[in-house]
């Protein structure tokens, strides 16, 4: 009996300890760490000299600065972390002293967690990478998930900070702005282009990317005649509205969007684009449906031309060699014809609303992505993503034969019409793509007009249900 009591008491003690541990684990947040503001390191590794304004603002010598270290939390998508070795740059920045950046990989559902944290007033992360403006910008601003960075850039102690805004390609600056405020710092820009595998174009006597839709169909037909027995598909497009119809509309008109912020899919340019897409399939140069596993087949060297994000050309270069693939702009409806550039987007780092260390976050971004950090820009360019600063194009791209195509894209982007500021792109992508797929599939029973009218009806029905317009 006595031993039974003793055992019971021991179990009870353990149970109590377990409950106490659970309560302790669930309660309380991180204690804030504060330190005297430290100057942001420059790209050369020397601490920035305090400016006169800073010196006058520094506390008196009799008041010692706090010793606790500031840790700035940055969470980023896995592909952003891996693509251009972001952890290496974080390590380099941290070694310079000052606020320490703690980089973590984004978890699933991070955005719902962030919004809950913002409501509670205790946000774990300071910054997020990345925002894709045409999909995320309006959503993130309207839900007050992110904060503008204009003032933070102005007050940043990073050497390059104030040079940033003036150095961005103007359309890229517009892309990351909303209602007159800047909402992030971009690290690269992507646009839609037409890529090719050199051996197939060379094989039919072509040395350059076809410049027009007719030239493209012509080239694809020649490639099909020569390489069909090797099961090479001449042409395909990556499965997405922006990598198919939207890109072609941009290449055929100056006004790709309607007054109500939708892609003008029933306009003349769109109908011509639809006819052209159908003609590719009818000619047998594009597989039925147009885009089944296109990028997969491209990377297996069985697709000679691809309409997709321009980084896919670099993917092929990495696999098959620098001279094995090329990247060019989307062909135009007519040579020298009217166009509105290409759909594009800036991969942008943002600062969360109610972040604990917004200034330190922007200091890091400005150091990382400032014009003088050539090593970072080299890594970004090598990953196949185009830079966002005019000075980088001048100093690193224009005289580099391997990446000169990026300069062509900079010119296209500089003249592109931006996607309207609304939340409708995902709706259009989901509602229009099934109609395109049906239109380009045998037995081709749907005309371009019918398909686009049907698609527009679906889009408008869904858009009418949205309150945020």
């Amino acid at each position, binding site marked *: 009996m006595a031993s039974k009591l003793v055992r019971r008491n021991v179990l*009870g003690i353990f149970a109590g300890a377990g*409950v106490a541990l659970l309560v302790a684990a669930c309660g309380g947040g991180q204690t804030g760490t504060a330190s005297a503001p430290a100057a942001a390191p420059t790209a050369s590794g020397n601490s920035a000299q305090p400016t006169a304004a800073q010196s006058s603002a520094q506390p008196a010598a009799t008041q010692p600065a706090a010793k606790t270290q500031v840790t700035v939390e940055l969470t980023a998508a896995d592909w952003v972390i891996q693509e251009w070795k972001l952890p290496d740059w974080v390590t380099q920045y941290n070694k310079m002293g000052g606020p320490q950046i703690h980089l973590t990989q984004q978890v699933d559902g991070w955005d719902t967690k962030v919004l809950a944290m913002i409501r509670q007033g205790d946000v774990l992360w300071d910054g997020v990478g990345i925002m894709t403006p045409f999909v995320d910008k309006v959503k993130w601003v309207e839900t007050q998930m992110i904060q503008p960075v204009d003032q933070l850039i102005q007050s940043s102690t990073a050497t390059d900070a104030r040079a940033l805004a003036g150095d961005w390609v103007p359309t890229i600056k517009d892309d990351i702005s909303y209602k007159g405020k800047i909402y992030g710092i971009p690290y690269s820009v992507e646009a839609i282009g037409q890529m090719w595998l050199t051996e197939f174009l060379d094989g039919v006597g072509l040395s350059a990317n076809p410049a027009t839709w007719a030239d493209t169909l012509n080239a694809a037909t020649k490639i099909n005649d020569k390489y069909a027995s090797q099961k090479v598909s001449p042409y395909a497009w990556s499965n997405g509205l922006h990598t198919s119809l939207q890109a072609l509309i941009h290449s055929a008109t100056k006004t790709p969007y309607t007054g109500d912020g939708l892609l003008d899919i029933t306009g003349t340019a769109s109908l011509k684009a639809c006819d052209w897409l159908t003609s590719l399939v009818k000619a047998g140069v594009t597989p039925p449906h147009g885009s089944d596993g296109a990028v997969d087949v491209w990377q*297996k060297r069985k697709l000679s031309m691809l309409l997709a994000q321009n980084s896919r050309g670099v993917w092929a270069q990495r696999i098959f060699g620098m001279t094995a693939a090329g990247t060019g702009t989307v062909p135009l409806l007519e040579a020298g014809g009217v166009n509105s550039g290409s759909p594009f987007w800036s991969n942008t780092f943002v600062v969360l609303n109610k972040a604990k260390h917004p200034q330190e976050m922007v200091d890091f971004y400005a150091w990382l992505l400032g014009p003088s950090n050539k090593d970072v820009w080299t890594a970004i360019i090598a990953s196949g993503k185009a830079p966002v600063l005019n000075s980088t194009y001048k100093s690193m791209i224009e005289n580099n034969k391997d990446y000169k195509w990026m300069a062509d894209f900079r010119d296209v982007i500089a003249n592109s019409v931006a996607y309207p500021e609304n939340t409708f792109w995902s709706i259009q992508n989901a509602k229009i*793509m*099934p*109609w395109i797929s049906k239109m380009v599939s045998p037995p081709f029973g749907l005309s371009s007009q019918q398909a686009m009218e049907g698609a527009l009806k679906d889009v408008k029905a869904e858009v009418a249900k949205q309150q945020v317009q």
Partner: protein
Amino acid sequence: MADLSHAQPDRTGTLRQFAREYRAARRQRWGNLWGYAFIAPALTLYLIFNVWPIFRGLAMAFTDYRYLVPGSEWAWNGASNYQEMFTNDSQFWPSFGISVQYTLMSFPTNLILSLAVALLISRIRNSFLAGTYRVIAYLPVILPISVALLLWNQLYNTQFGYFNLILQNVFGVQSPPNWLGDPGWALPSVAVAGLWKDFGANTLLFLVGIYGISREIYEAASIDGAGALQQIWSITLPLLRPIFVLIIVLNAGILGATEQALIMTNGGPQNATLTLGLYIYQQAFQFGDLRLGYAAAMSLLLGLIHMGLAGITFRVLRTERI
């Protein structure tokens, strides 16, 4: 004789006895209270992460909660969501129909295949071999679903997938199907992948039931001249009724079919695989305002259908309690 005039009643002893009797009575009614202390953490977590979301989802299904619209969490709108679902949503019924088709393709086949495999494994005398086959049957179940379905995407590849390579090179089929790109083939292809992923779990459940049937019944039937098929029909299947009930109830959620459509085809081609579960996901997390209230309403309807199916199953296949 002892002078008892100043004797005090033994109150301490009475109190002790009262406490003892109270504890005994409480233990009899409530059991040992330490048990409650032990289960309290798990119960708390269950209430927070399982029960509360059910009630929150239930409440959300009657609101016009839009993630992008601040303050809309409790914007009650009565039955408007359901009115829109049934009368003003051109995609709801087609998606529901696709989900039903998927379920009819996948579930009966799953049931028959897993039962057949379980019967075959149960007839293996060598315990090592039987164990090996059980592991092989269950392996797809433990694979992460995205890995399993992306694997099938590669198998289905029109140009490089093994299926079409075999069809072309072994069977001489000139134009093998575009498994995931042809609207006619896409849904069955997705159903087959889902079937491969899930049938192992049902096989194991059937095996548990089969192993629980007494050998003597089969021996008695053999003596009476019953063949193998007769034994299966007359003995095995009736005695597996509780397992059938369990499997049907556990698999009622197949109607949503979200992951398969999302990972393999994203609803394409031409919305041929846009199941109701995927459509709910699009409404909640992709389209415009991110209409969580409307998505919750559709999910509630799915949940009620699942409950209805479970209820019908219990009613039709009810078994006597032993």
